[in-house]
């Protein structure tokens, strides 16, 4: 259970940055942390003690493997994470170009 809790803890750290930080880059870093935490959590779900990675090296070998499905899903999730991070960075860069600051309290033209 401890590793799973560590993942949740990492998620909370990232979420803390997203919620309280005022610097846009910091928010993106926090977001990346949340996403890593979920990926790691998902992988841990499929971990099996004393088992091998799910790659067949010999047709006749006994197949005592960890769960391959979460790995396939996390692979997709990592790619999605890269896609979102790069788009957030692009937005951040354009916002800096326009407003000359990363401080979200100064970037507030749209009213509540």
């Amino acid at each position, binding site marked *: 259970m401890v590793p799973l809790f560590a993942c949740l803890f990492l998620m909370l750290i990232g979420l803390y940055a997203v919620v309280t930080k005022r610097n846009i880059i910091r928010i993106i870093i926090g977001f990346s942390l949340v996403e890593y935490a979920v990926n790691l959590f998902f992988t841990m779900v499929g*971990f099996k003690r004393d088992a091998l990675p799910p*790659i067949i090296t010999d047709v006749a070998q006994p197949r005592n493997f960890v769960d391959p499905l979460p790995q396939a899903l996390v692979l997709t999730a990592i790619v999605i994470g890269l896609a979102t991070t790069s788009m957030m960075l692009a937005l951040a860069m*354009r916002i800096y170009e326009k407003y000359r600051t990363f401080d979200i309290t100064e970037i507030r033209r749209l009213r509540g």
Partner: protein
Amino acid sequence: MIELYVLLAAMLVAALVAIQIKDLLAAAVALGIVGFSIAIMFILLQAPDLAIVQIVVETLTVVFFAAVILRTTNTDTTIAGGLKRELVFPTVAYVTFGLVLLVLVGRALAELPSFGSPTMLVAREYIALGLEKTGAANVVAAIILDFRGYDTLGEVTVLFAAVVGVLTIMRRAGRKEQNSEGRD
């Protein structure tokens, strides 16, 4: 499993550094440390596919962060030295929220199969059938490109959306000039 715990601790410390350090480039590097320790954990968790992808993705992420930070500004003006009074209340509230959440989720997590012994309801079939049905020795590859190839089509499309999206956002002028006088 002692390595796993050491790495988890290192990961948490690096994460705290990443969200607190004043220098943004250092924060991006700390994020990289989190990512690389996760990559090593993937190896310990018997997921070499993920480890490879995580390493290359992490490298690229840090490169992207560095590209943006070097083109803009490196110092975080919002983090002043010492404790800030207006941050005390949200932090305390957040920590309380986090603890309550952990206790609640802890009760829920206790019902999961214990760490290291997954149920593997469908996974068993993938392992048994993977090589015979698809011809791929790497069961993960068999899943992402054959059994669940449709997901991978989606994944490729997400990346495509991000590429077109980044190119869209980086356009210098979104609107054409001659129509702009009517706007304020």
